[in-house]
């Protein structure tokens, strides 16, 4: 194969991946959230959200009120948690602090937070409030994270298709 033809096919594959990544980053910039789309991983918010629901987040306008559903990251753990705000402190000049609770959980989230932390810092911990959702379509990612080999298989098939296909 000629070098330019090879370079073109590698480029086609790279463009597929990079476009997906840059669309994601573009959405991140627009919503001001590091992770503007998340998948519900647990049933702690049933019946509002089921496992596998796809949530769209918005992180502009930091004045979160009680009743809003927010997604937050706990320091030292990298799994985002989707829970409802049940109490808020501060705001204005002092940093806004939130207490959250899963609708389906008996107790609030104090135990889930990092050790010594009893409130979420709105600005530092929360990555966005839920503004919309699509039920169930995120289940694919649950499968992908529970069966990691699926990820490699999918990536491999995608790459193979781009390389083998002409037009």
């Amino acid at each position: 194969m000629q070098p330019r033809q090879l370079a073109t096919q590698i480029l086609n594959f790279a463009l597929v991946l990079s476009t997906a990544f840059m669309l994601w980053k573009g959405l991140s910039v627009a919503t001001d959230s590091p992770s503007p789309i998340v998948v519900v991983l647990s049933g702690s918010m049933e019946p509002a959200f089921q496992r596998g629901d796809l949530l769209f987040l918005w992180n502009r306008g930091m004045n979160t009120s009680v009743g809003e559903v927010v997604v937050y990251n706990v320091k030292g753990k990298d799994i985002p948690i989707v829970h409802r705000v049940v109490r808020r402190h501060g705001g204005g000049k002092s940093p806004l602090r939130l207490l959250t609770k899963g609708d389906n959980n008996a107790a609030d989230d104090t135990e889930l937070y990092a050790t010594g932390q009893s409130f979420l810092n709105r600005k530092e911990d929360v990555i966005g409030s839920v503004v919309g959702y699509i039920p169930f379509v995120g289940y694919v990612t649950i499968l992908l994270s529970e069966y990691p080999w699926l990820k490699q298989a999918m990536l491999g098939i995608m790459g193979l298709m781009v390389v083998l296909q002409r037009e």
Partner: protein
Amino acid sequence: MSATTKIAVHSLSDLKNTTDDALPNYLHSLKFKQVHKQTDIRLALGYTAVIIAGALFYFDWKFGWEKSKPYTAPAVIAYFLLNTAFSYWLWFVESGTVYEGEGKTGKIRIATWTKKHIPVYECDVFFTPAPTESNPPQKIRIRTPFTRWFTADGYFIAKPFQQWLASEVPVIGAADPNNVVEEIGRGSETERVLNVTGNNAIDILEQLKASGAKAAPGSGRRRKA
């Protein structure tokens, strides 16, 4: 020079790709030199975009969202601008160009396409006959069915393809006068070969005999009169 691999004759993309691949082979045999400028510009646009995305990915993975945030928006904008330029170049500037080159007889650029489910090779040929400085650039649109150079079982035959190009495109014809044929569709080498087979010779003999038999009574009539 003819491709020895067999293709599926009902696959339009196979027909087109095989023919496209034969184009540079033929033109290079006529001492045309390929110009890669268009391809190189497209590759440069594409790879610059990919490098920007890769850099952002690395930076984000290494330093996290908060650190990479100020660079994300400019990188995203730059990426999509380059991506748009890339697509524009691919669709509107190159628009199907499979060969661009220059030979002793002039410059040439060939763009090809097919219409969905129609096995006809469509070409736009842009050419400037030598001397390229003084001659105006010209454009012709030529098309012909793939059956002209593909056998029924899917082998590419170079000769009729070359004859077609040489006859239709002046710049190629000037570089390869031996392949220029007067009447399109009749000068194929395969047909010429068929004309001298034994069967054919017998046919011709039969025809001559038949006409001779007819001529005899004719002359007889004349004698009677």
